[in-house]
């Protein structure tokens, strides 16, 4: 499903090269719920960006659903994301000029999906916000905005959902709602989820947890096993 082979990312910091992600191999199989934890600046979000095709790796190959993406052009990547990858951000990134309903509708329209309006309405209802359809992002609370963002990410039923600190900007009650929502998505739809967070509690419910530090990954025991050990 997601395969990273010898993937690294080096950028120029001033004039000196800085490696944000050290060469790594990673395989996430279909339906798996993986979390990546680590302190700020450890390279988590960069790794997520690489998987989403938002950035190109310096070395290595990234294969999404059998397609090697590191050689793809910007527009081909956009199409691939439209079909296969949903993304949820820490700062929600809803389009401020569109209503909640329209924000969910947009990816369906881009993909030219049939019955787009019905699907968007169903998704809003799935995240419990059908009564907020006509509101603009500025009129919604942070938790509501993030639920809309998740509905939007799921619009085209992508096999993969990438979430970058989805609760990082929310209070604990709203954060919990989002965590539950993601679990439900993973279980009921079988969506593969890669979650980046610095909150180890949030990571605890996932199938696999990777810890990143200074660009290197280290695989922790799968969650159920850790629970047993604890």
């Amino acid at each position, binding site marked *: 499903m997601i395969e990273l082979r010898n993937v690294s990312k080096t950028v120029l910091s001033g004039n000196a090269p800085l490696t944000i992600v050290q060469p790594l191999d990673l395989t996430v199989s279909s339906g798996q719920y993986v979390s990546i934890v680590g302190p700020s600046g450890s390279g988590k979000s960069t790794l997520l960006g690489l998987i*989403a095709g938002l950035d190109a790796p310096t070395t290595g190959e990234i294969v999404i659903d059998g397609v090697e993406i590191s050689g793809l052009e910007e527009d081909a990547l956009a*199409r691939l994301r439209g079909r296969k990858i949903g993304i949820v951000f820490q700062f929600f990134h809803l389009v401020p000029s569109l209503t909640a309903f329209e924000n969910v509708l947009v990816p369906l329209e881009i993909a030219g999906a049939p019955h787009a309006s019905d699907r968007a309405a169903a998704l809003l209802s799935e995240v419990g916000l059908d009564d907020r359809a006509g509101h603009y992002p500025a009129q919604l609370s942070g938790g509501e905005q993030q639920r809309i963002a998740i509905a939007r990410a799921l619009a085209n039923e992508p096999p993969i959902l990438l979430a970058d600190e989805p609760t990082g900007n929310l209070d604990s009650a709203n954060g919990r709602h989002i965590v539950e929502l993601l679990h439900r998505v993973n279980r009921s739809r079988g969506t593969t989820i890669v979650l980046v967070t610095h909150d180890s509690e949030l990571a605890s419910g996932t199938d696999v947890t990777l810890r990143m530090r200074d660009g290197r990954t280290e695989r922790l025991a799968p969650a159920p096993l850790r629970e047993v050990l604890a």
Partner: protein
Amino acid sequence: MTFVLRMVGRELRASWRRLAFFFVCVAVGVSAIVALRSVIQQVGVAMAGETRALLAADVQIESEQPWSEAALAIVDGILGAEPELSRTLSIETPTMARPADESKVVARVVELRGVQAAFPFYGSFVLEDGRAYDHGLLAGGGALVRPELLTQLDVAVGDDILIGDRGFEIRGVVLREPGGGIGAFSFGPRVLIDYDDLLETGLLTLGTRAERQILVRVPEPRVDPLVASLREPLRDEFVRVRSYRNTEDRIARNLSRAEDYLSLIGFVVVVLGGIGVWSVTRVFVQQRVRSVAVLKCLGATSRQVLAVYVAQVAILGLGGALLGVALAAGGLASLPSSLTAQAAAVAGVEDLSYGVTGSAVVQGLGVGVLVSLLFALGPLLEMRSIKPLALIRWNLITVAARDWVQWTVVGALAAGLVALASWQAASWEAGLWVCGGFAAVAAVLHAVGRTLVRLVQPLGAGARFAVRHAVLNMGRPGNQTRVILLAVGLGSFFVIGIHAVQANLLGAFALEIREDSPDMFLIDVQQDQQAGVRELIEERTGDAPSLIPVLRARVTGVDGRRTQLDSARAVRRRGAGREFTVTYRDRLEANERVVEGAFWGPAGPARPEVSVEESIRDRLDLAMGDVLRFRVLGRDIRATVSSVRAVDWDDSRSGGFMFLFSPGVFDRAPHSFISFLRGPPETTARARLQRDLVAGFPNVSVIDGLEVIATVRRILDYVTLAITMVGGIAIVSGVLILVGSVAMTKYQRRYETAIFQTLGATRRSLVTMLVVEYGTLGVLAGAVGSIGALGLTWGLSRHLLDIEWNAAPLVNLGGMLLTALVVGSVGVAASLDVLRRKPLGTLRAE
């Protein structure tokens, strides 16, 4: 496709207010184009229906000389063969009119026309009292005059005026006359009298400038054949033949040229609006980075995103253009009726309807949409380089490298603008010149602006918080300084420039008057009047005037080493076919010097010789020893070219002549005299001299140079006003761009202000900051315009107008201060609401 269309709708819904100013930028220029084109087209339509009235006939045969027997024989022969034909005679001549009441000391130059009973064949007179015109009003010593003559001569209907040796009773005031032509140069107001009366005035003496006309009415199908059959044989008799249709063609040509050139003014304003569009779009794109990144994250391709925004710009451009059309329609509808009536009178038509015309609307819409697209495309293309990664890494700076697509767009913009300008001017050459000129002026002003901004940057190191930040704001990323400097600077450049040119021109005229240059001109003094005229003038001014003998001559052939022209027609083709005023004397005047050949001595040469002016030598490519053939008073005269003179035309004391003959050639030929003299300085003495000259020598015309200068000054005022209005529109565009850019950067400004407030900045220091920032911007914009204007006036004065250059410091300083005031107040006023918001609300929203 659905996605693109729907997104266009949603984006417009969200941001039309923010982009409302985009409309206005486009609308101002479009309304100028639509209004100008519509008015001229309607004038054209109105006049097309009345071209027969402009000539008052189907065909006009016209000669500046008394009809020669040969010419009359030709005319009679051809007209006699027409079965259905009416004809009538008319004469037009500039002359002097004065009140019969001796107590009124005044005399004025008038355009006298004598007509017969059959006049006019077409068109009708409009008299002030509403009476119908009848030739009886003229017959037996009657006159119809233009209203302005009544005031000039202080007379009323029923009073008598004297013209030549005769008295005429003013029987009516004519507001509109058929056969008056349009926009023709005139020496003075029209006076209409009976044809036979005119012959009795004794005015038509030798050398009098008069146009003798035969007006003809024939059935429509005969018009063209008649003109064709008359024109050929009459050409060598120096007789002009034209039909109302020639007039129609000429009017149509002139109007369409006027329409095209005036629309270029509108085009320049649209381009200024385009610069505004460019600047708005640039800020808009910066504000849309996040949304575009989100769309790309959701799977939208660059092409789809670009399509959304290009379509949006096209719709906004169309909206702006429609607004422009509405403005033009509203503006035209609200023109005061007195103005439209005046315009109708100038155009010589009964009534003008003012509304927008279909073709003007199409042109305006086309230009509006195309300019919007051309200017918006550059900034919009930057959306291609927005990476969705920006959603994760805010510090990611995407530097759009200038790739081939962008260069292509720049090329397309340039080519598109040239094409648009050429379309508007209906000429590639004009299009290229306008675009090139605009680009050159913009580049110079832009460079001046950059230098000035750099010069004020050291102020940014100053100690005061408000001043420091105000100056720094002008150089911050995303600033609008350059655009505002360019747009406002261009506007003030036009306005200051034209006022400075006017000041220079008026200064130059004033200088000429201050010196001992002549300010009164006498023409048509006859040989037997010389002594009397000289005596009268000497008595009144203390100086004996020099009377210069003049004749009117045409070149009819050149027998030269390099040039061989054997007919008047061949000479005409070389551009020397007009009738020249020539003189003879045995010496050079102070304003002449010989540049080639040798001037004859006091005794004069044995055979006729002629000295030509430089430009004539160049035009006819003459060499010393070439023989020129002239037609003077119906006789052919041959003279050998013996010298070439350079004439200083600015020094008009002795006049300037293209052809100067050796003495003896015309001694016995009848000729008249002209004189350039300096009249008495006070008004009453001047008027009395004029009056007494005309009373004693009725055929002599006295032209008052001071009045000519007053007229020139009036014309100059009109031109200045017109150009000031264009510059004003440019300044309005500049101010709009300023308002727009303030509005567009308001969000960022709000955030900064909130932070400053949180950090303890008082409202007072924030207001000071705004005042200093926009005040400096205004001073710089004014300085840009002023420096450009100095260059313009210097270039025009020295190279085109050939007058003394004067920096006109008051005009420049005034213009600069006014610009600073406008920009300062508009900028501060548009930004004030930023200060009204509470800082917490702003910071939370971010």
